[in-house]
């Protein structure tokens, strides 16, 4: 009866062993089928109430996001009474958030507070005695949501959203005035294009902030990579000040990635120690290396560690050659207490030219009786912190932290682009059909949709604004 397919993270926020993303509605099975790849079978049918193991995959890039267990409950035999899919993946903000983003990208709508329960009631899955509780739930959650919305309304986010809406309102009013009072205007030219361009920029800036907001909310992934036995685990321990990783002089000791959450300037950072990468490792070690590569791919930042006491090797060069120019790196030469076999210039020379690593850091963790390990690793920590905070600052000082807001901003951006095309101002490939240049009544549909999407973020939807604006700005009518 309610139409949309909804999705939400159903487990409590914070760190947990597993987390659940729940999807409810007619399209839930279809959406799950598109994000889940089963292990050991290429089947895409899901039997009811059967657990499947596999991976959640970003459908466009085919990137594996997480391991997952999924199952399907066909309506009406489900909590909400509709078709429901549940995806159990690893707990913690990052994987759950990514899975929810992907599911919403395929057309699910982020659920309103209490919406699963409301649907359960409306579909007759809860009895009469529970109806009162449902109302309480809607009310209390909404009150909390309202409170949160108001907090944000006082912040700069709503100020910026409001500014963009104001620009769109101006364009809508002009289009409305020209359509409803065609005789009041001379010439048809260039309605609202400039306004739309500026609105598009405003939304794009807010979306940049969404990425930074994700960082603040979900944290940054940092990995330490390097060939075996260069001192990665020592660095890891120095940064976390615990003997969390086993340190031993035998190459290949770290067979699995070790992870720990750190706080850097208020931002959660997931630091990962990885197995050293080299060719020709035996089977168990090779698995660790495979995992290290995956960890590197998922990371936002990486520390590439070299061993200053031995000449640069083929393994070092192979790792350097595989670094991803999209990521930011800190390059360090360790074992600075031993005689050095090469200098910073030689180390820099093995990096591909497109990798920006800044100045190479020298590191010595040997006990000098004066500084703690943490202090010795201080330069690396400062560099990482600079990159973490810099990444946020570069995004925007405005943080869009909610998936729902991000989805609404993306919708607004797409509608504005389509509206610009309809007005003949470039932008997307074209209106709904690709060719309505100069048609303000079609552009209006898009601009209004963008305006409403932005209004949902700040909780304003009144439509009379447009007509008020027409008569404030234009002297039209008889």
């Amino acid at each position, binding site marked *: 009866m309610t139409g949309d397919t909804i999705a939400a993270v159903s487990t409590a926020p914070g760190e947990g062993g597993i987390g659940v993303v729940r999807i409810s509605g007619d399209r839930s099975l279809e959406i799950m089928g598109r994000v889940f790849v089963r292990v050991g079978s290429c089947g895409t049918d899901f039997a009811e109430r059967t657990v499947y193991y596999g991976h959640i995959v970003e459908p466009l890039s085919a990137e594996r996001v997480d391991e997952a267990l999924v199952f399907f409950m066909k309506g009406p035999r489900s909590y909400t009474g509709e078709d429901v899919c549940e995806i159990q993946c690893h707990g913690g903000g990052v994987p759950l958030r990514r899975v929810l983003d992907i599911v919403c990208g395929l057309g699910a709508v982020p659920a309103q507070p209490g919406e699963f329960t409301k649907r359960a009631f*409306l579909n007759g899955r809860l009895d009469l005695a529970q109806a009162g509780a449902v109302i309480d739930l809607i009310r209390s959650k909404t009150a909390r949501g309202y409170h949160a919305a108001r907090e944000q309304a006082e912040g700069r986010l709503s100020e910026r959203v409001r500014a963009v809406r104001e620009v769109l309102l101006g364009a809508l009013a002009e289009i409305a005035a020209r359509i409803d009072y065609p005789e009041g205007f001379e010439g048809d030219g260039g309605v609202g294009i400039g306004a739309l361009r500026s609105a598009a920029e405003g939304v794009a800036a807010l979306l940049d902030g969404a990425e930074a907001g994700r960082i603040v909310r979900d944290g940054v992934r940092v990995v330490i990579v390097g060939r075996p036995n260069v001192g990665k685990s020592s660095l890891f321990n120095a940064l976390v000040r615990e003997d969390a990783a086993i340190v031993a002089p035998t190459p290949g000791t770290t067979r699995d990635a070790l992870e720990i959450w750190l706080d850097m300037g208020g931002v959660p950072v997931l630091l990962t120690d990885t197995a050293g990468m080299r060719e020709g490792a035996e089977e168990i070690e090779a698995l660790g290396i495979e995992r290290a590569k995956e960890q590197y791919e998922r990371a936002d930042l990486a520390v590439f560690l070299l061993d200053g006491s031995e000449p640069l090797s083929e393994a070092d060069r192979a790792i350097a050659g595989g670094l991803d120019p999209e990521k930011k790196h800190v390059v360090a030469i360790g074992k600075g207490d031993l005689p050095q076999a090469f200098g910073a210039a030689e180390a820099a020379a093995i990096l591909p030219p497109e990798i920006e690593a800044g100045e190479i850091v020298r590191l010595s963790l040997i006990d000098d009786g004066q500084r703690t390990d943490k202090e010795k690793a201080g330069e690396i920590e400062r560099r990482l912190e600079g990159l973490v905070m810099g990444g946020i600052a570069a995004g925007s000082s405005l943080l869009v932290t909610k998936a729902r807001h991000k989805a609404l901003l993306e919708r607004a951006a797409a509608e504005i682009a389509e509206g610009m095309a309809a007005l003949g101002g470039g932008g997307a490939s074209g209106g709904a059909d690709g060719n309505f240049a100069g048609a303000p009544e079609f552009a209006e549909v898009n601009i209004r949709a963008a305006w409403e999407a932005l209004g949902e973020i700040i909780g304003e939807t009144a439509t009379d604004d447009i007509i008020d604006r027409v008569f404030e700005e234009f002297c039209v*009518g008889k």
Partner: protein
Amino acid sequence: MKNNYEIIVVGAGHAGCEAALASARLGKRTLLLTMGFEQIAHMPCNPSIGGTGKGQLVKEVDALGGEMGALIDKAFIQSRMLNRSKGPAVWSPRAQADKEKYHAEMRKALEGQERLDLCEGEVIRLLYDGRPDGRRVAGVLLRSGEECRAAVTILATGTYLGSKVFVSDRVYESGPAGFAASTALAKSLKEDGFELRRFKTGTPARVFAGSLDYEKMTEQRGDENPVPFSYINDEVNNCNVSCWLTYTSPDVHKLVFDNLGKTAPYGGHTTGVGTRYCLSIEDKVSRFPDRERHQLFLEPEGLHTDEVYVQGMSTSLPEELQERAYRLVPGMERAEFSRYAYSIEYDCLDPLTLTPALAYKGVGGLFCAGQINGTSGYEEAAAQGLMAGINAARELDGLPPFLLDRSEAYIGVLIDDLVTKGTEEPYRIMTSRAEFRLVLRQDNADLRLTEKGYEIGLASRGRYERCLAKKQAAEAEIARLRETKVTAEAANKLLLAVGSAPVKESVSLSYLLTRPEIDYAALAEIDENRPDTGKAPILRSAAEQAEIEIKYAGYIEKQRQQIAKFGKLEHQTLPEDLDYAALEGLRLEARQKLAQIRPVSLGQAARISGVSPADISVLMVHLGRVKNH
């Protein structure tokens, strides 16, 4: 003697005439009362019908079986499709009317209507029938002392109810155009407990065409081949009398500005709420002081009069200053006045007191239509009159009300706005008010509404059959355009000639039609088997439908999806006797608003200001509870 009626309509303006005709056509013995026969379907302001949004309303009234479209087709002296430079979704027909002819044609229609009696008489009081379940209107008392009884009364008092005319600091009781005001009825309605509010409007002076210098103005011609308003007409006369465009000047503005204190509102003489939709010249110069000029359209009032309406110059300046201000306008230097401008205040109701069927909520047996409901405009009035007439008749037959929603018609937008949101100024329809305007077009009002009009017994069989024929022909033409393929060579010859990108393979005609450079007419040279629209006029409108549906398919489909979503809430009805005070979980403001407005559906509830999405959730849960029980 005047007691043998089922429905009485008070007032024979644009609302009252449509209400009375609809009521009589639906089989009800109907009495239409007017204070004077000269006032029947009179146009006290612009001599024109239609315009943006308004033109769509007229076509909808026609599609349902109303009268306005057919009459303006007989009485127009110029007709134009506005917005032709934009897409068909916002095309709007507008005609200049011969006022006298329109009035005469309506009078003929009323007099010729079976079961309808037209009678002169001033209503001074409503009669009531005290019942255990509350008061019910039982008829009306005339100034003559005569009582007219009927089960339902429709009030369509226009700008006559308690009306006063203002010119500068002079105020006097008067209806529009010098006709008498309905003062006694206004007084008795207040005594009976109706809460009335004061709205205001104004009209410019009329001048004689012979005193104008059109050489200094720009001619405004109508269309060479006017599109009929009525779907029953294939073609109409091609009368094309020009209007003339001129402008105010800084001199005019200065004179008005210097004398603002001598106008009624700025001098503090009026209290009524005016409309932003037609500003007086004093409002224009004080609200838009930077504008160097404002447009003025000179519109002839008919074929058999020399009077010209000066659109854009309404004012309540004293007569002597009116003459001076008008004569500063280029081309009007020697203007001779036949009537002076005035502003007029009148009593009306808060439309939140009405149901979507336009029944008054507090008292039984009473419907209201037109300016009494807070609107302005002949077309808005006609649309409400038609709906009130239909619903009054249906109430007597014990049938559910006939309602149109916002996705079906401009009529639905108009009435929903009034009864859900209310209005704080005289309300005018605009296409911008219609969220689904891409499908609410002037070209398809028949396809949207005629079947409904036929089902309720108002639209004639002949009209319905015409509509079906158009629908079938349009569907056939869409299918033909989709199925007919042309070679890439043939297509490219056409595409390259208009500067559109060539194609590589053979394509369908419908594909070519989606190119902005190609319209249906342009396809003719490679479309050998198209139906000969010259033979059957219905094929012309069918081809037009096919062209629009194919060309704008993407946006139309998008809008249809929005309508489907809209319909989900709209079709969940709320019980009439729902006790909002007892409903747990509603916020206080929502509770009060819901109890006052008593929405008929969840969709309507959601549009009430002060009702939040959470309140709607609470209502949904309540509905679920009732259903599950």
